[in-house]
């Protein structure tokens, strides 16, 4: 039931933020519609202190938490005064260390090998914390996917290597990434890594496979590659129009269906959930998201022209600001 709530929360949050983007309160947004089961179930399989190296489509990892993270996320999306990232990053490129959520890069795949490095460090230190790396089907064509598999195998790194196969990479089907007549899980097998191909729209399957992989890593039995088969139901991003490259009703033909619908039916069948409970939870969550958004908007949105302090542009380039940046900051101040 906690999982049901997390999935619903993620879906509601996405819907709401997409509206905020259209209202120009946010410059850009990416939803994970249809893929909610994966990140939310996986989050429940990890421990505190473990580190995820996600892509922009694992907001579920954060939204599974109930520690006020939602307001921080919206502040980041709105690049406002309370944006923990000081307005530097494109919306959705979150970073939240306390949630075990590594800073998102705009460059695809780079985090996958970093996850392996983090896991190697944990092993070197004799630590039991594990890393969980994430990548999309399309991005598996990048070098970092290959190096991640190679290094994870060679050093038996305590890492979970998640491949989210949602069938699409912007406009191209997964075949263009080499998914045809083989699988992404098979890449792992080829590299000598224990690999599973899992129905990513089955919440319980995701939970079980994630727990198994986490256990293996924690016991130093080596890396596991998990291919999650799912479907990107929405547009790639708020700047994308899928009708240009796929049938509008394509999702409805996807055999693995809608993770929320499926889990709901399952819970109802085993009698621990009901239509009413589902609806009330949805309303509750809508209220929760609305409240969070209201709170976040107090600190400004892109729309109201709020911008961070000028110095934040020059801070954190280096640990200490070097003379040339102090000089440039002064010039920038003068130019204002």
């Amino acid at each position, binding site marked *: 039931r906690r999982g049901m709530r997390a999935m619903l929360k993620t879906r509601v949050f996405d819907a709401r933020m997409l509206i905020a983007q259209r209202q120009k309160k946010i*410059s*850009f947004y990416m939803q994970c519609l249809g893929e909610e089961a994966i990140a939310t179930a996986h989050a429940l399989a990890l421990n505190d202190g473990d580190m995820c190296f996600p892509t922009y489509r694992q907001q579920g990892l954060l939204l599974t938490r109930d520690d006020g993270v939602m307001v921080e996320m919206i502040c980041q999306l709105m*690049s406002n005064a309370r*944006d923990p990232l000081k*307005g*530097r*990053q*494109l*919306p959705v*490129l979150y970073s939240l260390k306390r949630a075990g959520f590594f800073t998102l*890069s*705009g*460059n*695809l*795949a780079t985090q996958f090998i970093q996850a392996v490095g983090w896991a190697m460090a944990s092993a070197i230190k004799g630590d039991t914390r594990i890393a969980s790396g994430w990548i999309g089907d*399309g*991005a598996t*064509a*990048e*070098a970092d996917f290959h190096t991640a598999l190679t290094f994870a195998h060679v050093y038996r790194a305590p890492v979970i290597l998640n491949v989210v196969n949602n069938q699409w*990479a*912007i*406009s*191209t089907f997964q075949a*263009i*990434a*080499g998914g045809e007549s083989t699988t992404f899980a098979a890449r792992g097998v080829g590299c000598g890594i224990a690999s599973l191909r899992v129905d990513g729209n089955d919440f319980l399957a995701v939970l079980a496979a994630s727990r198994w992989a986490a256990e293996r890593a924690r016991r130093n039995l080596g890396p596991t590659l998990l291919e999650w088969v799912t479907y990107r139901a929405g547009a790639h991003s708020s*700047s994308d129009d899928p009708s*240009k*490259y796929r049938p509008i009703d394509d999702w409805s033909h996807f055999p693995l269906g809608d993770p929320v619908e499926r889990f709901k039916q399952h819970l109802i069948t085993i009698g621990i959930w009901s239509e009413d409970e589902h609806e009330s939870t949805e309303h509750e969550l809508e209220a929760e998201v609305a409240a969070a958004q209201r709170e976040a908007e107090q600190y400004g949105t*892109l729309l109201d022209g*709020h*911008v*961070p302090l*000028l110095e*934040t*542009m*020059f801070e954190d*380039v280096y640990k200490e600001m070097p003379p*040339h*940046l102090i000089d*440039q900051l002064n010039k*920038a101040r003068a*130019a*204002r």
Partner: protein
Amino acid sequence: MTNQSNVATTPMTMIQALRSAMDVMLERDPNVVVFGQDVGYFGGVFRCTDGLQAKYGTSRVFDAPISEGGIVGTAVGMGAYGLRPVVEIQFADYFYPASDQIVSEAARLRYRSAGEFTAPITVRMPCGGGIYGGQTHSQSPEALFTHVCGIRTVMPSNPYDAKGLLIASIENDDPVVFLEPKRLYNGPFDGHHDRPIVPWSTHPLGMVPEGYYSTPLETASIVRPGEALTVLTYGAMVFVCEAAANESGIDAEIIDLRSLWPLDLPTVVASVNKTGRCIVVHEATRTSGFGAELVALVQEHCFYRLEVPIERVAGWDTPYPHALEWSYFPGPDRVGAAMQRAMEQT
């Protein structure tokens, strides 16, 4: 600019002009192929290749896996075979995975094989900011390419040049890195982001011949003649500099370099020897940017004519920020102030 006299022209955006250039070359040369991420069926995230696959088929215009290294690496192999690949890197910020194939391979084939194998490839990449893209959709890495011998680096600033220079780049037998200031795709943006967007249809350089023509590489263009001060710039900064000159009333000579390297040095030197004052303007980060090379060249060739130091106006030495993008972007105010300083000092 060649073939310019009395030919039928139509208004085009820079996107349409680039598409037209590829269309013309696909038509004229059976060895030209076009590929990259989302460029085939979809027509590119910026629509630059829209309709080309339908017209020329999937064996000449096609989608590629998300591997910049693979895209350039296969292009190099195709070039060695005898094709003229035109590939797209979706954003210049993402060329790094291809840097080994660009620097160690494309740029070196001719030299290391003494001319037996060459890579006549064109690598297109949208660059620059001003679209709230944050640090990974806004970079201008041109300086890195100009340090690499064996490749040509080109950056147009308007539809007319974009088409002529892209055709010249595709026809050129050296590998060319072709940078497209995405903020100029749809209009001659002058840096006043708070003002309504001006479309290319209102600009003379938005009038583009439909057929074949080429704009020679290694030739700069004096977009605004002047006597008081030389402004060396290119790409998205060209219209910003024009605006700054007009607003400050300074009689600045603005040179759009267009081909960054090899460079049209004579035009640069002649102008600075005439004006005795020079500023260099680009959007890329300042340190070790291409502006440094320009300053070094100008002081080497025009030292005794220079009346004031050459100032650089450039992006700050920070990543391109999202919310503060307009404080990062070197707008007309910053350029104008530098022009003023160059005129005042002596």
